[in-house]
């Protein structure tokens, strides 16, 4: 009981109130003490109960949500919900916990609750997304064997330029295309791939070993070109900054 957060909803539109009720019911620590359609209706409840958090719409019949909250002493913890982005400024003037724009997705609601809990220095809620849609990993399309083939970036080990074609070595197979290596370099995400030689582009996350002269990928030793040493080191550093788990 001590840990639960007593909250009320002030909202004049029923579906909007229903949505908040649904979200509140999904979060165990939240305890809904009442739902009201205007500030004046909520006053009695506020006087008789200890309310930790108020969800209020801004555009309400009679007194606005902002004015209502302003009239309360001491200032309560409030999360504003509104359809109107321009009210946001007003809301933050009042030291609102958060400001939710309608329609409110559950993840956003959860974020607001966590923001409140952080203020209250309690244990944060797990952001367990209901169903995280599995995202297709990034890929590129290249022309190989007179047709366009899809290659996942994560599968690529390195690119090697031959006389008048380019070999793409992936974990699965080797593709031959007629793109120039410079053209390919331009199209690849620069945080993930680096040109280390006139004839080689490598996937940074696939690098297994590295010294100033060469790198090793998938048991293959690839030399670092005389003019590419600086850019290679820099690219590896940048990658490490962005992906702290990456070590060489």
């Amino acid at each position, binding site marked *: 009981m001590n840990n639960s957060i007593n909250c009320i909803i002030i909202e004049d*539109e029923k*579906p*909007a109130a*229903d*949505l908040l009720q*649904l979200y509140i019911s999904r979060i165990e620590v939240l305890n809904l003490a009442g739902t009201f359609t205007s500030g004046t209706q909520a006053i009695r409840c506020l006087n008789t109960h200890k309310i930790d958090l108020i969800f209020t719409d801004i*555009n309400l019949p009679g007194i606005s949500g902002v004015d209502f909250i302003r009239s309360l002493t001491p200032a309560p913890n409030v999360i504003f919900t509104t*359809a*109107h*982005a*321009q009210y946001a400024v007003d809301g933050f003037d009042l030291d609102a916990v958060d400001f939710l*724009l*309608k*329609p*409110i*997705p559950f993840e956003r609601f959860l974020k607001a609750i966590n923001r409140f809990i952080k203020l209250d220095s309690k244990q944060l809620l797990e952001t367990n997304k209901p*169903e995280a849609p599995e995202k*297709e*990993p*990034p*890929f*590129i*399309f290249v*022309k190989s064997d007179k047709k*366009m083939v*899809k290659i996942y*970036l994560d599968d690529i080990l390195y690119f090697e330029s031959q006389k008048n074609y380019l070999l793409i070595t992936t974990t699965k197979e080797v593709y031959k295309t007629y793109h120039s290596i410079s053209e390919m370099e*331009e*199209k*690849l*995400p*620069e*945080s*993930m791939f680096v040109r280390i030689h006139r004839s080689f582009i490598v996937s940074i996350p696939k690098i297994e070993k590295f010294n100033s002269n060469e790198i090793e990928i998938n048991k293959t030793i690839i030399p670092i070109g005389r003019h590419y040493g600086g850019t290679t080191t820099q690219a590896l550093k*940048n990658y490490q900054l*962005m992906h702290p788990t990456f070590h060489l």
Partner: protein
Amino acid sequence: MIAIPRSRLGKKSVYAIYWILYVLLFGFIQAGPFHDYRNAFASEIISLPMRALFVAIVLEVMMERLLFRNKIWLFILLYIPLILLFAVIQRWIDNTFILEYFLTQWQKEPLLSISPFIYSIIKLQFVVTIPFSVKLFYNWMREQHRSMRMAEEKTQAELLILRNQFHPHFIFNVLNTLYAKTLVTSPESAEIVARMSSLLRFSIYEINTTRIPLEKEIKYLEDYIALQKVRFDHHQQISFHIDGNPDNKFLEPFILMAFVENSFKHSMPNEYGDSWITISISIQQEWLTAKIENSAVPGHSGHQLFNGHSGGVGLENVKRRLNLIYGENHTLKISQNEDSYFVYLKLKLESNE
């Protein structure tokens, strides 16, 4: 609404007609019972340039500069000596030319002799009264018209403001209702509603801002891509890759969006085979690099690059904005071959100190 009677005659013609009528009228009146037309007209015509000058000074200089600018007392103060001065000139012309050569039967009197002097003043006053009244009336009509126009424009502007205030609020409340109603029964529909709302908000509220957080722009790109995916039932193959930290970085809105939109516009699913779009955005320190490539439709190549009817104007507009806002701080390369269309954009992000 009062329309100004727009005389097709110019100001000069109006003056000319006035003076011709004036000379005719007074010529005939003064010719009198003896039908002395020659002398009557001669005396009117001789006095004409002086009178015309007087009227011109009063109407074009004093009315315009003083009366219409609310300097009424100054106008009156200058008008009195002016009309006295011209009465003197009239008297001098009378004595020197008219009574000398034409109306010789009349007796000359001293220049400032009271009764002919007063007669001259009255005549000058008469000459100026009609044009004065007409001009005053015309000016009053013009002011009326202008104030009405201004009031009308003000109402228009207010209406526009009202419209902008009312609509978004209403629309987002309705969308919220729709979201609430579909969340349990059809979560997929609810997601579409949420993304649609987010995009709509972007286009309504961010259109007037000059910089938005990169995080937001990326969120809108994601919303847009997700909506396009459901629209075409995932027939397009879309790769969206972001690397780097967008926190606390800002950029001009709608630039990335414009290129992404363009890529979708030109790689709609078609009967020729795969349709795909690859988007990669990387943020390294203050630099953002966006690489956007889309499949080209064989036979339609060239359409996207050279301003076709669709998208061309938008793309030109984006290029102009890039040059204007980022100048040296950006690189834009667009290339096309028969398989694909590729946009390379690198620009310097702003950050909050």
